[in-house]
């Protein structure tokens, strides 16, 4: 008898729930040991409706098609000296930040979604986690392949995984993800799938990918397109997972709300690196951080939380602080990098007049008054041959690990210092948001590997800056320091000199 061809729905059912079984000689709680300790109550795993009915064979087919397109563009980029098509060598610093800070997170996401694909008790959700795990591995690989072309010509890209584990500013994204993966499966879903992938992802991907498009980086744009359909699947998973938790039991609501509050703030602090990139590192600007925040958080997020109100969920705590800070945050973040460019695997530079005019226009209430004078003073010092570098090491926030540069709401001249006591020690945080997170789980954050403190414990290669930079694998004099005078600037000027159109000799 010829087997009947299955409909798509039947095929999907057979490939997902059809593969599941009830354990008989082991207790369910022993098979899924992580399922209950967070306090989340699930009564009916079968109530999970898969938002996208994608079977594994269809998944492979889609992904293979996208890969073919992407690798054709990468090859063409390599053959046609695509690095010459970017707007300016300074643009590459956005790419450095991406591969050092974001790509390793894709790999961490791959690992942890694989963990969820094993440990979530519901078969539908397990399959979704498995596909996302493979997506994340693919993103990590395709980002590395895309950006490796630039590694042939530009500095700071050569050892990004090593740097991710050690550098002070990369401990910000690293510790963010470590926090999520060391939480239980439902907090991880809420943190990464919902708060990050659903609520905040447009603030990560749109700026980097549009920034690439505006600045002639076609390889990164193509990667962005290749990841886009995956990202929309991830967003849907995040939203549906949170709805599922909220619908299963009323007692889940306050737990999920606590996670939304925490991960909104963690994500927002992480995005200060992205916002800085948008406002400062793109020679051709896409939109300002302030505008992006209004569009992608205040409007889109406002609608989302209005919709979730029927479950008893409110807007994240401290969303008002993020709104109030939006005219200050990126300038303060750029100040950190300008202070410590000698210890970073990327460059910063003087803000020229055209850039200042753009910043004044985008931030009419804050830039000219508070930040422009600072930049002009730094420029004066640089012109005297005394480019400003901070000789000390910064105080770091115990939770977000960003140097404590952010100011009090409404008082941009005063740093926001918060402190908690735990077990007889002081712990400093940068904001009420980070302090709340610390105070909720002090046993967790008291273990933070703070790069500055580790240097002073003697754990980072030595007591002098060159020794620490060696330990970071920073190629000193190339990866670090101001763009002015860097080998990259010299190379870029040489390239452009060769490409400058020949000016016709005037008829004499």
């Amino acid at each position, binding site marked *: 008898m010829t087997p009947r061809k299955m409909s798509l729905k039947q095929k999907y059912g057979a490939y997902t729930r059809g593969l599941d079984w009830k354990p008989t000689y082991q207790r369910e709680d022993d098979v899924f*040991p*992580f399922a209950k*300790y*967070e*306090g989340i109550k699930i009564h009916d795993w079968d109530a999970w409706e898969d938002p996208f009915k994608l079977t594994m064979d269809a998944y492979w087919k889609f992904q293979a098609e996208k890969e073919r397109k992407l690798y054709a563009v990468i090859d063409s980029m390599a053959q046609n000296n695509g690095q010459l098509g970017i707007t300016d060598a300074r643009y590459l610093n956005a790419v450095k930040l991406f591969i050092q800070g974001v790509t390793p997170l894709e790999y961490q996401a791959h690992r942890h979604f694989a963990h969820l694909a094993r440990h979530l008790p519901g078969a539908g959700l397990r399959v979704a986690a498995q596909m996302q795990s493979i997506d994340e591995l693919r993103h990590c690989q395709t980002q590395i392949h895309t950006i490796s072309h630039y590694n042939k010509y530009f500095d700071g890209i050569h050892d990004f995984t090593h740097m991710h584990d050690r550098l002070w500013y990369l401990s910000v994204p690293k510790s963010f993800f470590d926090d999520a993966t060391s939480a*239980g499966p439902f907090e991880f879903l809420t943190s990464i799938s919902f708060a990050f992938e659903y609520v905040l992802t447009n603030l990560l991907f749109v700026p980097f990918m549009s920034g690439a498009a505006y600045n002639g980086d076609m390889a990164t744009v193509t990667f962005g397109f290749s990841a886009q359909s995956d990202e929309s699947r991830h967003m849907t998973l995040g939203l549906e997972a949170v709805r599922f938790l909220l619908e299963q039991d009323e007692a889940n609501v306050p737990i999920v709300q606590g996670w939304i509050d925490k991960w909104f703030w963690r994500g927002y602090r992480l995005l200060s690196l992205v916002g800085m990139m948008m406002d400062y590192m793109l020679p051709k600007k896409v939109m300002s951080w302030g505008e992006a925040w209004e569009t992608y958080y205040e409007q889109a997020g406002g609608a989302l939380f209005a919709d979730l109100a029927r479950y008893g969920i409110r807007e994240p705590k401290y969303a008002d602080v993020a709104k109030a800070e939006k005219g200050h945050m990126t300038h*303060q973040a750029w*100040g*950190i990098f*300008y*202070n*410590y460019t000698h210890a970073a695997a990327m460059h910063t530079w003087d803000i020229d007049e055209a850039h200042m005019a753009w910043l004044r226009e985008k931030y009419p209430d804050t830039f000219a008054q508070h930040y422009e004078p*600072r930049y002009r*003073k*730094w420029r004066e*010092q640089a012109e005297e041959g*005394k480019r*400003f*570098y*901070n*000789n*000390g*090491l*910064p*105080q*770091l926030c115990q939770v977000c690990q960003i*140097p*404590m*540069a952010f*100011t009090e709401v409404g008082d941009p*001249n*005063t*740093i926001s*210092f918060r*402190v908690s006591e*735990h*077990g007889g*020690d*002081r*712990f*400093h945080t940068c904001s009420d948001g980070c302090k709340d997170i610390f*105070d*909720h*789980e002090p*046993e*967790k954050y*008291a*273990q*933070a*590997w*703070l790069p*500055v*403190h580790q240097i*002073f*414990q*003697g754990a980072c290669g030595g007591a002098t800056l060159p020794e620490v930079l060696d330990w970071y694998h920073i190629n000193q004099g190339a990866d670090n320091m101001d763009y002015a005078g860097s080998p990259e600037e010299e190379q870029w000027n040489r390239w452009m000199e060769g490409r400058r159109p020949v000016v016709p000799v005037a008829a004499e």
Partner: protein
Amino acid sequence: MATASLHPGYTGPVRDRVENFNGAQLVYVHWEEHLNFCSAITLPLPPQTPFAALTGEILPSLYAVDPEWAEVDLSKARWMLDGADWTPDPARSLADQGVGHKSLIRFWTGPSATA
């Protein structure tokens, strides 16, 4: 609140205990109203460091890169230690006058010192 965990009573090593700093303790210093220095600065200092060494050697080594530092008279500065007003004695050590591990010292100079 306790961390939700598989094993109730979960705790972990506190990574920055004072005994991990080879005899020094961490002290954070911040020159207020000079945010060209983006944040407070972390220093590993022996507890017996005299306050005069902080003002005479350590702070100038950090802040003299700002031309305004040349005008600063630290004897007229206003000080705050861990959130409370503070009148340090230059002759005594940091530990003797309440500076502990991960203490925060903030100071104001110029017109705001008297504000």
